[in-house]
């Protein structure tokens, strides 16, 4: 890092620490709860963004139907949970159904467009419109919310704040677990190694004799499944309805832009940054909280256009 960039970083960190100290002294409750809210929001964003960035990193496919997959996972998970009265089954259904759909999409549609990034993006846009309308048709306009078990639906005492939603903490734990599993999968398994190799140099992966199509199909399935998982898990905390898909897609984009395309760790960092900025914004400046997240994105882009951990394009 060049000398003056280092000074910028130090100045930024010092400023943040100073402001945080003031905020804690001023109203510790507000500060701690905002921080916690930010981190738990980051958990959801990570689940969303990890799938998105995985698919892009390997296959250069900007899946703008990611939000629709989120919503679909939520609806399908709700149906299964409602019929069987077992929440966990609903979660599994949300994950598996979108995973299978992702697999099918890759094998039947995207395989024939390998290398045509723009065309794939257009197809995902068309898919998102079609999926959104089908879901509106089948599920109507009402709000749906999943019903997690009583055990995790209450609140727990947390230092400084007396009551914090247990479910949000469970979500945080799940996101961390998913992150660890993903890391293990990518870093320690053969398939993961192939995926990482493909992200770095897809042509060489093909040249080395691996059946790239299977790797692609698996990756897309995982990415889509993660979107559905995020949908069904978040559906226990926030109601979902038509229109959620575009909201959620926006956050996935923001996190991935900030964190860097193709990097899971970048997705984690990006989600924490965006989650915390948004949570603090909602409490300290509610009117423009969303605009602040964009300002954060623009600030990151001004210094690193490829994102924090993105590879230089």
């Amino acid at each position, binding site marked *: 890092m060049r000398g003056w960039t280092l000074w910028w970083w130090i100045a930024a960190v010092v400023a943040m620490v100073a402001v945080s100290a003031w905020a804690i002294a001023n109203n510790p*409750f*507000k500060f701690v*709860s*905002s921080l916690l*809210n930010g981190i*738990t*929001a980051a958990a959801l964003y990570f689940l969303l963004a990890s799938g998105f960035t995985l698919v892009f990193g390997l296959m250069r496919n900007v899946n703008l139907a990611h939000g629709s997959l989120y919503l679909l996972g939520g609806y399908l998970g*709700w149906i299964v949970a*409602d019929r069987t009265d077992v929440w966990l089954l609903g979660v599994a259904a949300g994950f598996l159904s979108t995973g299978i759909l992702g697999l099918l999409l890759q094998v039947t549609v995207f395989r024939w467009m390998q290398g045509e990034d723009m065309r794939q993006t257009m197809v995902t846009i068309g898919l998102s419109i079609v999926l959104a309308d089908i879901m*509106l048709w089948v599920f*109507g*306009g*009402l*709000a*749906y*919310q*999943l*019903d997690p078990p009583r055990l995790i*639906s*209450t*609140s727990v005492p947390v230092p400084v*704040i*007396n*009551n*914090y*939603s*247990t*479910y*949000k903490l469970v979500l945080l734990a799940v996101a961390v677990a998913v992150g660890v599993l993903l890391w293990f999968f990518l870093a320690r398994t053969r398939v993961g190694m192939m995926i990482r190799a493909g992200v770095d140099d897809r042509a060489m992966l093909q040249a080395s004799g691996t059946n790239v199509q299977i790797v692609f199909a698996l990756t897309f399935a995982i990415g889509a499944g993660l979107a559905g998982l995020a949908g069904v898990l978040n559906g226990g*905390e*926030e*109601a*979902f*309805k*038509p*229109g959620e898909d575009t*909201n959620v897609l926006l956050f996935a984009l923001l996190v991935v832009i900030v964190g860097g395309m193709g990097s899971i760790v970048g997705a984690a960092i990006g989600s924490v940054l965006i989650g915390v900025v*948004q*949570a603090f914004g*909602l*409490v300290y400046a*509610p*009117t423009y*909280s*969303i605009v602040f997240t964009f300002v954060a994105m623009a600030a990151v882009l001004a210094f690193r256009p490829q994102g924090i951990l993105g590879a230089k394009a």
Partner: protein
Amino acid sequence: MKVRATQLVGGLFALALAASTATGALAQEIKIGLLATLEGPFAAGGQDGMRGAELAVKAHNGMVAGKKITVIKASSDAKPDVAVAAVRKLVEQDKVDVMVGPLSGSEGIAVKNYSKSQPNITFINGSSGAQQTTLQDPSPNFFRFNTDGAQWMVGLGDYALKKGYKKMALIAEDYSFPYSQVHGFMVGYCKAGGRITHKAWVPLGAKDYASVIAALPKDVDALLVVLGGSDAVNFLTQYERAGGDKPLVGGTITVDQTVLNFRGRRREALVGTPTAGPMADNLDTPEWKKFVADYKANFKDGFPSPSLFAFLYYINMKATLEGLEAVKGDLSDGQKKYREALAKLVLKSPAGEIRLDDNRQAIGTTFITEVAKGPDGVFFNKVVATVPNVNQYLGMAKADFDKQGLGSRDVPNCP
């Protein structure tokens, strides 16, 4: 090649023209355009609104003044420019005689402005409830037979004080409809000595209320929650999870049928929440009971009880048809006689009598209700008080009302 290009273009146009003009206008037919939001965040309300309007047409057996009623439907997604485009198509292309709609507040203002450019067509509201539509720059051919968002909350302030809620905190969405609702509440509440010490205006569609909940003051007696649809559902879930225990007072769409029937766990904590609006689920009048029975009989896929949107579209369509009956379907001379009949119409709605004021805005009854749970486990709103003859000036003198201005983030204020 040139020939094929023009053939292609010509074919496309022919298709479009054929599709649009295929419904030839019959002489013995009255065409009514119907606009509701069938996409986007208000989709559920729009679907029910269409049901309400269809119910009104069915109650007339599809005929009015001896002519067949043809309803041409259009959809918008709560965006004013989309609404105006849809209305323009219905009026200028499909040549409807009367236009009923739209659903949401800002669409209503846009349609009202459009109506000024079509002086020979009569426009009747669907369910939009923005104060400005008839208070600012009203249009001579735009009629609203439903009370506006502020009128819906008149009397709730006094009721809240009666329940002992002297200090309240407000959580509401940050746009015009909640402004009117809060305006209607606070006019009575502040005058009678109540205080709202904390106002939290959240962005529309915000899902994360954790921060807002964390910032709520601890020393208030109750919360005034003016959120709609899924925002209300999210807030209630998160408030409960955060251990919140203050009693709530709800806005008109905070605990209406679309929220009470959402697909998730029923909230026992909601029982007893007071709210106010132009209707109540358990009104004891024969007209209301018939309305509910007809709704249930005709729409197996509808709600257990008609929602607010169904009711509002129903009364507006009913007024449309009764006005047509009164002039025996005479829409000649720029529909002048029809509009005069509408202005004088006293509508016997299922929830009381409705008259129009000088701005063609409804004067009607507001019902104070509380959420109750029926023996079959279904939640509904039961009447606890009635406020008759609520006008758009909310019981104030016109001069005072104008001085205070329309509801906004800071108006009115009584911290």
